[in-house]
């Protein structure tokens, strides 16, 4: 029963993507810097080849971030209809900026300069290799795809919030109230959520399916983020990782986070 429903949603999702692609292609933002778009004829719009990987991963270089820049957050939240509720209690976010000292408490010793300790670090779902949230979900509403993306089925989630307790990174948000009135501008290409379900970053699976890199990666003018398949030696992610030491959040927990930080 479950796969049938999921397959149906997938087909429905792709049809929806097919419908909106022509309009999206007229938006420069959706194309800028997307290699897959280059070379395709604008006269004959057709779905682009989906980006695929054995395992998706991301690198983040917070030291490249400009002070007070929130471009990655804005792009992500616009793309995914994330509400701006405006109080910390009911807050919903997929990507946020947190001080380095709080993101890497084990590394934040007292001799660390304040400029480093207070450095804003983008934090998002780590799309763990071994995700505790998936393990605890009593309805399999959150699940891991073969390419490593940890997904949410908003139509199955019962809102028990066990996944929020299980996530060691605080990456998940609950819709404590109806989010729709708090969405500045609804993106019709992506579903909105109802009150009572949990949501989080999806590594832009809907964009990957259309051959476009994640919104945060493309929105960053400082190229502080890369996205790709670490198994592929020519991928952007591998190029960055091969340069030297990278950190992951709480690797000691064995969750296998797939967001790598270069500091």
């Amino acid at each position, binding site marked *: *029963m*479950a796969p049938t429903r999921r397959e149906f949603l997938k087909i429905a999702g792709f049809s929806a993507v097919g419908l909106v692609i022509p309009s999206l292609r007229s938006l420069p933002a959706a194309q800028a810097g997307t290699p897959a778009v280059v070379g395709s004829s604008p006269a004959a719009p057709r779905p682009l080849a989906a980006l695929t990987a054995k395992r998706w991963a991301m690198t983040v270089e917070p030291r490249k971030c400009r002070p007070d820049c929130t471009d990655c957050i804005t792009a992500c939240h616009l793309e995914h209809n994330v509400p701006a509720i405006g109080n*910390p*209690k*009911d*807050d*919903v976010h997929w990507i946020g900026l*947190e001080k380095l*000292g*709080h*993101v890497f*408490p084990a590394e934040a010793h007292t001799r660390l300069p304040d400029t480093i300790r207070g450095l804003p670090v983008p*934090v998002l779902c780590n799309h763990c290799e071994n995700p*505790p949230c998936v*393990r*605890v*979900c*009593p*309805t*399999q*509403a959150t699940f891991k795809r073969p390419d490593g993306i940890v997904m949410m089925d908003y139509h*199955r*989630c*019962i*809102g*028990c*919030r*066990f996944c*929020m*307790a*299980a*996530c*060691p*990174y*605080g990456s998940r*948000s*609950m*819709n*404590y*109230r*109806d989010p729709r009135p708090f969405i500045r501008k609804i993106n019709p290409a992506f579903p909105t959520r*109802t*009150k*009572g*379900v*949990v949501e989080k970053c999806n590594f832009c699976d809907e964009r990957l399916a259309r051959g476009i890199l994640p919104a945060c990666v493309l929105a960053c003018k400082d190229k502080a983020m890369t996205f790709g398949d670490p198994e592929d030696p020519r991928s952007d992610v591998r190029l960055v990782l091969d340069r030297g030491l990278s950190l992951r959040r*709480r690797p000691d*927990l*064995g*969750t296998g986070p797939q967001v790598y930080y270069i500091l």
Partner: protein
Amino acid sequence: MLEKALKGSRGYGIWVAFLLLLVAVGFFFYLRQLDYGLGITGMSRDVSWGLYIAQFTFLVGIAASAVMLVLPYYLHDFKAFGRITILGEFLAVSAVIMCVTFVFVDLGRPDRAVNLLLYPSPRSVLFWDVIVLNGYLLLNIVTGWTVLESDRKGVPPPAWVKPLIILSIPWAVSIHTVTAFIYSGLPGRGFWLTAIMAPRFLASAFASGPALLILLCLILRRFGRFDAGEKAIQTLAKIVTYALATSIFFVLAELFTVFYSQIPGHMHHLTYLFAGLEGHNAIARWMTVSAVTAVAALILLIIPRTRKNHTLLALACAGVFLSLWIEKGLGLVVTGFVPSPLETITDYTPTGPEIAITIGVWALGLLLVTMFYKIFVSVKDQE
């Protein structure tokens, strides 16, 4: 037998009406919660479980404690518990119904609760908790009701109940163990990540449950024309004493491990719980009450003279119940979330509607206890 719950004295009627009123108020606020969302509670992105899940956790303990009557009576033929074993089973039934209700009111999408059964997920501890709780509910309804029915007819209970009663003994241990595993199996929450969680849960359950049962027996003696017998009450009191001492010992063992090893991720939570962090000390104040009450109650229970005095015994039992309710029904759940994975200290304060719903569910449970016990007393009156 059910009709016996409907007829009673004037006092009984007023008490039932009062509980019904509380249930109605709770239900009214639950409808508001359905309309607005769980944002109507004090829960937040950081502290995503609150009063509801904490009550659930505490009440699983009350439910499990029925085994403290069933085990001595059925395995060791301890006759003094013969008169009150059914009271323990009915208390368990009411407590499990409260547990299930608390989990239900905590759901963001209660309309989809059936997904738990449509997409069974054996890797999820919550899935197993649903199984063991419902199994335990069924076991206790069937055994309690059948035994009482036989009492009414003046015949010995049918032979097939005995295996079910024996099965309910390990099953009682399982419900609280699985509930503890909800917490202790999470990698990122240092406060809950302790193998002693399930033993701690059981120890505190075997103190708070029998303490409540003693209080109920004393109430029945005063208002219900039913005497549980001095031997039964004193034996229960000794069970409470040992379980409370064990429970306190387990907490001290936890404190030693955390504060001697001095691993910050574990220490911060317990500091928040008992002393507060950066001026956030609302929970710590409650915990001070809990600690002082527990020690005072333990002293009253250990000294035979005070334990045998019914006024002081009632006071001690109320103390045990209050202390462990604060520990599990307030502190245990919230503290797991503070500080958050990003080291934020977010206070949790339940809101008015949330408290009204919580009281409503408790009133529903008390109503069930009242009606079950009324039926029980009416049957005993007939004998």
